[in-house]
């Protein structure tokens, strides 16, 4: 059984100073312009390794900081996302500041 994995190799567009590899935007994938803010690049880069980014705005109405904390934790612990603690903090801070619309 052979799986082509070329598409899984994150594009090595390392961000200066952070060492963050950008995720795999696939052909035809819609560009999701995430809001400007601290942590945007690390969020976009790491989340897009496994999924397209519209999951972020789509879930904003259901999310507060605790919700994002739980989700990022799930991605790390359950799904094995290669996100270290400092990156996780940056991602949660970014999402809580920009995509936490739960009322």
């Amino acid at each position: 059984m052979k799986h082509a994995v070329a598409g899984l190799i994150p594009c090595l567009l390392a961000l200066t100073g952070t060492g963050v590899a950008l995720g795999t935007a696939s052909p035809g994938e819609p560009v999701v312009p995430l809001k400007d803010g601290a942590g945007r690049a690390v969020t976009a880069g790491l989340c897009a390794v496994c999924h397209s980014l519209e999951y972020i705005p789509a879930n904003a109405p259901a999310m507060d900081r605790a919700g994002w904390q739980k989700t990022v934790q799930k991605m790390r612990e359950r799904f094995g996302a290669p996100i270290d603690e400092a990156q996780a903090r940056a991602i949660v801070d970014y999402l809580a500041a920009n995509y936490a619309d739960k009322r």
Partner: protein
Amino acid sequence: MKRRELLLGGPAGLFMPALTARAGAGGEVLEALPGKRALIRRAFRPPNFETPLAGLVPEFTPNDLFFVRYHLAGIPEVDARTWRLSVGGTSAAHPLSLSLRDLHENFTTVELAAVNQCSGNRRGLFTPRVPGVQWGNGAMGNARWRGVRLKDVLERAGIVPGALEVWYRGADHAVLPATPDFQKSLPLARALDESTLIAWEMNGRALPHLNGAPARLVVPGWTGTYWMKHLTELRLEPKPLENFWMKAAYRLPAAAFPGDQFPSQQTPDSKPITEILVNSLITAPLPGARLRRGHAATLSGKAWDNGAGIVGVAVSTDGGAQWRDARLGRDLGRFAWREFSLPLDTSRPGPLEAWVRARSRDGTAQPDRLTFNPSGYHDNIVQKVRVTIV
């Protein structure tokens, strides 16, 4: 196994030519995937696309309008000619490896109509909002499924006493090796139910790639999470499957809902989602429609349940004080949905709100209020449509 990889996230660019995204009526993005007409895009990778309301009007949902739901973005296009289904496990006496031709030639072929409904259908309508794919009404469809009984295949492999569950997986896979593979299980009794199929056809045609070709599991009456696509492996096992998809995902509070039990996967606090609850969908008139006074207008839609069978669909246009039974369409089988219709009184101008409540032969009926649960499952409340008569 040799097969062509269609990675949604891959370099092949296979998705490029067919993409035609446009804005839908509700501000949603409609997009045609390969082999599909335009569906509502909830997420691109992994692909989660739902059927627009118009696609839920026919008795059988066309294959190219049937919803698409994946957890993981590695989606190989499996070659039906070389595909093999492995049937084994600790509780199998005679492990098998079957080709599609083996299934065709060595087992009885059967066909049944059944609703396939994603557990999270209508999650996006939940109050309060809950995380997950924000589905509207269209993560469901009704189709004729053709294949062989799972029971016949398992029995051919020899079911050893003590078998408890059937574990199974498909060819789709995660992007990262560390992500748990999408493997699910059924209680042995449900696996041996005569309605549970390994199907290679829907609505008289080969399964579309994005609906699980070359063969998928069909578990009528149970939610879509059990209907494994691109089926590759069946295992008879004497113990419960313990993984993320069984122990953490697709679970309900233990006491919250009716439905079949899944004893080997239950805890004091929670249980797996199992059966579809009695439900309905109004397909006409559309919300906000302006109906002409004195002109004929019909309320219509679909009603379905866990396979007990729909016995009635009641309609109220006075806020629930009085209810009238709608006319039921032809019976397509107990696991299929049932059409209903009722003429609307358009003699008085002004707003009109119609409420719809389906009843099942098992004694359940659609409730008035949503039972909250953290994953947003089982939104089967009374359906309402508001129109204006002008």
